[in-house]
Structures are given as structure tokens and as C-alpha cells.
């Protein structure tokens, strides 16, 4: 009994000391740099180390699989090329519209109609459904997350130990650290903006507001261990403009807002999100809509126009796809933000899937599950390109302008430029669809032709 007491206090002391040390380290290495916007480069070193480990792990799996003659599954079982399940009508309309301007309801065959079938044919030749299940030779580099690897079987002791170690590190060390950081970041944001909100309007308030926002977003960036490379920062959005970007996950907001000061646009939510939103708007004029107002397009457009015309107000951040896309493509941009007539600053965001898949499939995961997945990944590595500003030309309409911006973003980010509405992501394109394509096409041309000859 005697011996236990001093031992106990020793343990308590040790615990106390280690927690203090940990927090000091946290403060010095993570929070202080976040406040001032500098970086020690720790994350980059971390990333390089991880890559080396991943390569080693992959080689081990391949070697192990060859020895035991296991077939390896390719992780990207969706194929090697990005197939566009665009509807025939949409695409032909699109090409015709950009060409001679003929709509589909005027009849006749157009020279460009052949294009859709030609491309579909080449896609099928390059890669079709049957062939993707097995790959005898190569595996993509495995990132030690079993959620991304179907090949993980017991290959070798060393590998399993490494994977187990990875799990331990991610869940027991990184996760609590990140949760603490996230908590700090969010509470500082709410507290800071509320306090700043009490100041009288003026230069001081703006200055403080900007820095509070930036600081908190930077802390959140570190909370996710996001390693971001910004390109072409001279093109960053200015006041009175609209910043437009492709959307992969809610993290996009944090990534962009940690490098620039934007006015957000969105719907007011309840719960924690709502608290954050209400606090933020005290410090600087974000544009939040009530749920009922969101449906009213004119109201939305009016408020946005008012905001842009006031040059002292911040650039608006908008994601025109309307939903999260899986970062291999860019889908149709909704034209609302392009009708306002302000300068558009396009931004392309591309995530590196090797370190963690940032895509939020909202039909599969809720927000909390998604955040947990993000926080238990190794890191989130992405690139952001600021593209030069674009304005609507006089002979363009909003849709054409939107597509021009979309093409620029797709081109820069190396993403596929798709034409279809992101709302279709929840449904799968059916097989009978393919056979119907030809029938549909001929109906389109012939049906119209018959109508025309009748009238």
C-alpha cells in the first residue's frame, strides 16, 4: 500500500508533465504559426516520409502476392478512363449550340453529330467493363489505409505490423490532436468574430475581422493536416468579384478561406453550423439565406448583385456545381452566379487521392462520419490554382460564359469537362441505355424531320 502512493503521484506527475509539454508543443508548432501565417515545413517533411513508407509497403504487397500467386485487384475498379455518362441529347445540343447555333428542335442532321458516337466508340475500345477486375502485374501505391485497398490480406508480418502501427498512430495520436485543434479553431472563430462584432465599423474592425478569420481557418487547416500548394497567387480574387471553384468536399471552403478573405454564401443551418454562421456575420458581411429564401432565385440574385456592386465588400465564394463531385471531373455549372455580371475569378482545386480521399459522397456518409474519416486519414494534399479573371463577353449568354469558365477550371486542374448535372450522381446509368442511344438518336432526327415535312 505504501509503495503505491508515491508511485501513484509519480504517475500523475508524469502525466501532468507530458500533457503540459504536449500542449506547449502544440501551441508553439501549430497554433502560433497559424496566427501569423508562417509554416515550419513540418507537414511537408511528414508527407515525404509517408510517401517513402507507402512505396515500401506497395512493393512488399506485390512481392508477397507474386510469391503466393494471389491475383491482385486494381483499386480503381471503375476503369482506367473517365467515361462520361452524358445523355446523348445533352451532348449533341451542346455541340450544336456552340457551333451553328441550331437547337435540337430544328430538325436535320448536323455534321457534328457524328462526334458523340465516335468518342463513345473510342472509349469502349480503350477500356470496357469486362476487363477491369484483375491485374496481374501492378498495384497502385497503397497508402496503408485498409479502406482503400481490397488486396489487404495477410501478406507478411512486417506489413501487418506496419499497418497496425498506422492504425494506432492515426486513431490514438493524430485523431485526438486534430480534434483538439479543430475545437480550438472553431471556438476561436466564434469567440473572435463575436468580439470583433462589437467594435464600431471602420478600418480597425475590418483588419481584426480579416485576421481572426484567417487565423481560425489556418488552425482548421492544420487540424486536417492539409498540405496545400497555391499556384499563381497574383490572380487571387479582389473586392467586387465572384470567386468560383469546383467542389469536392466541404473542406474546399477551409482551403480557400485560409488563403484569402471571402464573403461566404449559403443557407443558414441549425446547430453548430448555425452558431458559427451567425457569429461570422457579426464581424463581416457574409450572405446567408434563410431556407425559404433559397428557392427564390430572384431574391438570391438581387442580394448577390447588391453585394458585388459595393466595392468595399469582399469577394463572394461560390461553388456553382451545387454539389460535391469526386474530383475527377467538373460538372455543369449552374448559371445563377454568372448572370450577375461581376468579374469571375475561377479557381481549380485538385486533391491528391494518395493520402486520403477527400470526396464527400453525401448519399453514403453523413457530415460527422465524413469529418471523422478525414481526420483519421494521413493527410489531405491538394493543389489550388488561381486562374486569371474572366468577364462575360457581350455576345455570350450566361450558360456559355459558365461553360467557358468551367472549361478553364477543368483544363487547369486536369479534370474531365463534363456536361451533365451533378444531381445525376446518385443514379447509375443503365445498360439498356446504350442500346437505346442509337434508337433515340434516329428518333430525334427523323421525328423532327417528319414534323417539319408535315407542317
Amino acid at each position: 500500500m505504501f509503495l503505491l502512493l508515491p508511485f501513484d503521484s509519480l504517475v500523475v506527475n508524469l502525466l501532468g508533465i507530458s500533457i503540459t509539454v504536449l500542449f506547449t508543443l502544440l501551441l508553439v508548432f501549430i497554433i502560433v504559426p497559424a496566427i501569423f501565417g508562417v509554416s515550419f515545413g513540418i507537414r511537408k517533411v511528414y508527407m515525404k516520409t509517408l510517401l517513402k513508407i507507402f512505396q515500401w509497403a506497395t512493393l512488399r504487397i506485390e512481392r508477397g502476392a507474386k510469391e503466393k500467386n494471389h491475383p491482385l485487384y486494381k483499386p480503381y475498379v471503375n476503369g482506367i478512363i473517365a467515361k462520361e455518362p452524358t445523355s446523348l441529347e445533352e451532348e449533341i445540343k451542346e455541340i450544336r449550340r456552340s457551333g451553328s447555333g441550331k437547337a435540337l428542335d430544328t430538325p436535320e442532321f448536323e455534321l457534328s453529330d457524328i462526334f458523340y458516337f465516335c468518342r463513345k466508340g473510342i472509349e469502349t475500345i480503350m477500356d470496357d467493363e469486362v476487363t477491369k477486375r484483375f491485374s496481374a502485374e501492378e498495384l497502385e501505391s497503397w497508402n496503408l489505409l485498409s479502406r482503400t485497398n481490397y488486396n489487404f490480406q495477410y501478406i507478411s508480418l512486417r506489413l501487418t505490423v506496419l499497418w497496425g502501427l498506422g492504425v494506432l498512430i492515426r486513431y490514438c495520436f493524430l485523431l485526438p490532436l486534430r480534434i483538439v485543434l479543430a475545437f480550438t479553431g472553431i471556438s476561436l472563430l466564434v469567440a473572435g468574430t463575436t468580439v470583433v462584432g462589437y467594435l464600431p465599423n471602420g478600418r480597425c474592425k475590418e483588419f481584426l475581422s480579416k485576421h481572426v478569420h484567417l487565423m481560425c481557418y489556418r488552425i482548421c487547416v492544420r487540424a486536417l493536416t492539409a498540405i496545400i500548394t497555391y499556384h499563381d497567387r497574383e490572380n487571387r480574387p479582389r473586392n467586387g468579384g465572384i470567386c468560383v471553384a469546383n467542389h469536392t468536399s466541404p473542406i474546399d471552403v477551409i482551403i480557400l478561406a485560409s488563403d484569402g478573405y471571402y464573403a461566404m454564401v449559403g443557407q443558414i443551418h441549425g446547430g453548430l453550423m448555425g452558431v458559427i454562421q451567425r457569429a461570422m456575420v457579426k464581424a463581416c458581411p457574409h450572405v446567408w439565406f434563410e431556407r425559404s429564401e433559397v428557392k427564390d432565385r430572384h431574391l438570391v440574385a438581387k442580394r448577390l448583385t447588391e453585394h458585388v456592386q459595393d466595392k468595399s465588400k469582399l469577394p463572394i465564394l461560390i461553388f456553382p456545381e451545387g454539389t460535391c463531385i469526386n474530383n475527377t471531373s467538373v460538372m455543369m455549372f449552374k448559371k445563377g452566379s454568372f448572370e450577375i455580371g461581376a468579374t469571375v475569378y475561377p479557381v481549380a482545386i485538385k486533391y491528391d487521392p494518395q493520402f486520403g480521399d477527400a470526396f464527400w459522397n453525401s448519399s453514403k456518409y453523413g457530415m460527422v462520419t465524413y469529418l471523422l474519416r478525414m481526420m483519421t486519414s494521413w493527410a489531405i494534399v491538394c493543389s489550388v490554382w488561381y486562374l486569371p479573371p474572366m468577364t462575360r463577353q457581350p455576345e455570350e449568354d450566361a450558360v456559355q460564359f459558365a461553360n467557358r469558365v468551367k472549361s478553364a477550371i477543368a483544363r487547369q486542374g486536369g479534370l474531365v469537362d463534363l456536361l451533365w448535372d451533378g444531381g445525376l450522381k446518385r443514379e447509375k446509368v443503365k445498360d439498356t441505355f446504350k442500346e437505346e442511344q442509337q434508337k433515340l438518336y434516329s428518333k430525334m432526327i427523323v421525328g423532327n424531320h417528319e414534323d417539319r415535312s408535315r407542317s
Partner: protein
Amino acid sequence: RALQRGVPGAPCARHFSFPPTVTSEQIEHLHRRFKQLSRDQLTIRKENFDSIPDLEFNPIRGKIVHAFFDKRNLRQESDGLADEINFEDFLTIMSYFRPIEMNMDEEQLDRFRKEKLKFLFHMYDSDHDGKITLQEYRNVVEELLSGNPHLEKESARSIADGAMMEAASICVGQMGPDQVYEGITFEDFLKMWQGIDIETKMHVRFLNMETIAHCY
């Protein structure tokens, strides 16, 4: 990493006028696909394309397969059709569908676009005379509309004729009653595709984009 391994039978990437953005990994993917289609032979013939089930549904499959063997597309000096193609030829055809690169200047972009449009032109111009005649145009329209069993040949023909007249009016303007429109030349063809940015649409992209080089 992939280059160290080496794939037997796959020629080195340096032999092609591929831009550096096509990685050796992508060429390996295509090589695997080629081996599958050729059943491990060194060359592919037309019959090998019959093994692709999805291609069945494409109304112009004949023309597409034909395009692979067309010597003009294969950048060979002679004319006509090849009997069989090897992997290098396969890649040459695929290169018509490579995506646009970020650092192309005006001239390169223009050449890029013309190459793609030439590919499409050759699909229409089946007798290799450099012009799309009315008969060839009718041919394409009939094939595209072949999915509809109820369509009579006459209707398809009249649609084609209407389209051809439209094309003639774009290219030549008003024609006198005695003038015969020979056919759509490549210059006219280019005119008709003006305004359509084919170079951003006529491509097939590989899914795993190598962003590692960009990310740090």
C-alpha cells in the same frame, strides 16, 4: 518505378511524339489493353474488334474500326487500308484523342485541333479522295440512323440531302442552277466546325491523374 520494371514488347515512350504528359503508366495500361484485344499477338486485325461487346451498340462501329486501319490516320505515306496494325499504330490512333495540354501556344493548339478534325474528316471521306461527296454523306447518315428499323431508306436519304445542301450553302454561298457542288473539302469542313471547341471535347482522359508532381 514503372520504367524500371519494363514491359516486354512495349516500345519505349520516347519513340512517339507524345507530349510528356502521357505517362509511361498510361502507355502500359494501353499496352495491356492491346494485348487483350490481340489475344497476345503482336498485331490486331479488324476481327479482333468484334470481341468488344459494348461496341456492338454503336451505329458507326464500322467506321470507327475502319479508322484504325486507315493509312491516312496512321500517318503512313501510302494510301488505302492496312491489314493489321501493331501497338505503335494503335497508340498513333489513340493520340488523336489525347487531351489538351496546359502549355500549348496558339500555333500548337491550332495544329492540335486540325489533327482531330482531320480524323473526323477521314471518317466521312471513305474513298480517300479528299472530299466528302453526297454519296459518302448519305452513307454516314444512314449508318447513324440504322438503329431505327422503321426508318425507310428514302427518309434517311432525304435527311442527308437536306444536310448536304445546308453544308453547301455554308461553304460556297449561293450556287447557280448549273453549278454542281463537288463535295466538302477539308477547308470547308474546318469552316463548319468553327466555334465548336472540339479540342476540349474530343479526348479520353485517364482516371488516375498524376497530381503528385503538382502537389509539391
